[in-house]
């Protein structure tokens, strides 16, 4: 079962995250931490003319937090606000909703569906997404 969780793709995103950096010129940014385990993450994004052009993150946490964040940054690039909402909802539902195939294309992120078998780790996979959702919400409410 361990092998199901720690697939090579997930470990590759953990070891060599392409999107782990502070994004200069971000107009969406959020920070979260999990007080129970001490994991911390900052998520950055730039939205130009209603479309997310670049996303990145900085994190101190386990492989699942980091891989989830790195894959998230890949997945959401180029998405509109409506796409982003649908993607975040689909990812959350993949981990916490009924055990069904996601109806939005999530690519490699679907590998994280295995986290369902490790209930204490679900919050790790969700942390970057929750941070992005909160950050988008804050940027929405700004004039």
């Amino acid at each position, binding site marked *: *079962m*361990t*092998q199901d*969780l*720690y697939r090579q793709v997930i*470990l590759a995103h953990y*070891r060599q995250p392409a999107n782990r950096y502070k994004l200069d010129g971000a107009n969406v940014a959020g920070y979260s931490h999990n007080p*129970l*385990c*001490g*994991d*911390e993450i900052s998520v950055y994004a730039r939205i130009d003319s209603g479309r997310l052009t670049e996303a990145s993150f900085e994190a*101190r*946490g*386990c*492989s*699942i937090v980091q891989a989830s964040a790195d894959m998230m940054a890949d997945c959401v690039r180029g998405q509109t606000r409506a796409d982003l909402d649908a993607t975040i909802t689909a990812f959350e539902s993949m981990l916490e909703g009924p055990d069904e195939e996601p109806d939005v294309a999530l690519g490699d992120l679907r590998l994280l569906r295995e986290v369902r078998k*490790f209930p*204490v*780790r679900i919050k*790790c996979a969700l942390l970057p997404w929750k941070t992005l959702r909160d950050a988008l919400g804050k940027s929405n409410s700004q004039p």
Partner: protein
Amino acid sequence: MTQMSKNGFPVERIREDFPILKQLIHGRPLVYLDSAATSQKPQSVIDAVVRYYREENANIHRGIHYLSERATADYEAARRHIARFINAPDPRETIFVRGTTEAINLVAHSYGRRFIHADDEIVISAMEHHSNIVPWQLLCEQTGAKLRVIPITDDGELIVDAYAKLLNSRTRLVSVVHVSNVLGTINPVKRLVEMAHSMHIPVLLDGAQAVPHVPVDVQDLDCDFYAFSGHKLFGPTGIGLLYGKTAWLDQMPPFQGGGDMISTVSFERTTYNSLPYKFEAGTPNIAGTIGLGAAVDYFQGVGVEAAARHEHDLLDYATEVLAAIPGVRLLGNAPEKTGCVSFLVDGVHAHDVGTILDQHGVAIRAGHHCAMPLMERYGLAATARASFAFYNTLDEINVLAEAIDEVKEVFS
């Protein structure tokens, strides 16, 4: 397989007393190395709790019927027994609480309200659990008192010279941990108490991780308060003990108000009950207290000293085996240690270590262990911690080591 420790400690026979240890986890024998979080319970403790509910459940200190008398007698017998276990001079100085956290909060509220004022100082250490930090921070916010922190060395020892310099005429209380839940360090608490007393400063010791591992004699330590939890001492959750010297307890106002803690109540004036009842408002955890009495009984039957020797072997062996694995680093190298090893696997977060170990049936703790300032001291977010009790075997440490090899393989 029959296994004895090298001291002849009959660990396999003792394991028979713990029904939970017989089960398989993910198809493998449970290797429970998380006793510092909570210990497992022997059958005799489970039986004592069940027997109380089946045969004598009644409220205490107020009934005039048979069951109430019997429950009261058993509750008070447990108090006397537990008081003797830590060599408290008088059972009236032992107050039942929910656990170490509540015990420390009781002192913070009650001693704090009476004796701690603006610009006074409270001394704690850099290796405290959050339960011996936050109650004092809350008190400092309310009173304007200040928190002072004894630093530690890289090996995880208190710097006693720095402690000496922190003590002054404004110091109203020292509150330090007896045994660290992360580093396993046994602090030189008797000396710390002596140094504080030479300046007339009282001392509270957090004994949560000490009582399951080292013989505790509160008269020998001469501490003013001693706190511990039942569930780490092979007893039920939700019960713990605060020992306090009468001289202090008599001067302290009650912690919580309610039934049992009063002598007389009118709307004009309430007078309080005598010790220890002044500090035990409401119906207590009767079943938990009786269960804790049974746990102390069981532990004394095993032998506190014999258990400590066996655990010493476990700790030595675990230290040797883990230190020999390339890429594994141990945290906490104090010469006086007991109960646990904290470790790091290069390039692998402690939670990933914990998940993979769990698949091998090995239960450990991963995270900041409710000691975030200590983690900060070492520049870490988390460690993995294997913690021991007398029911663990040397073989289980081999299983731990094999599982760590698998961690390294997955992340290689």
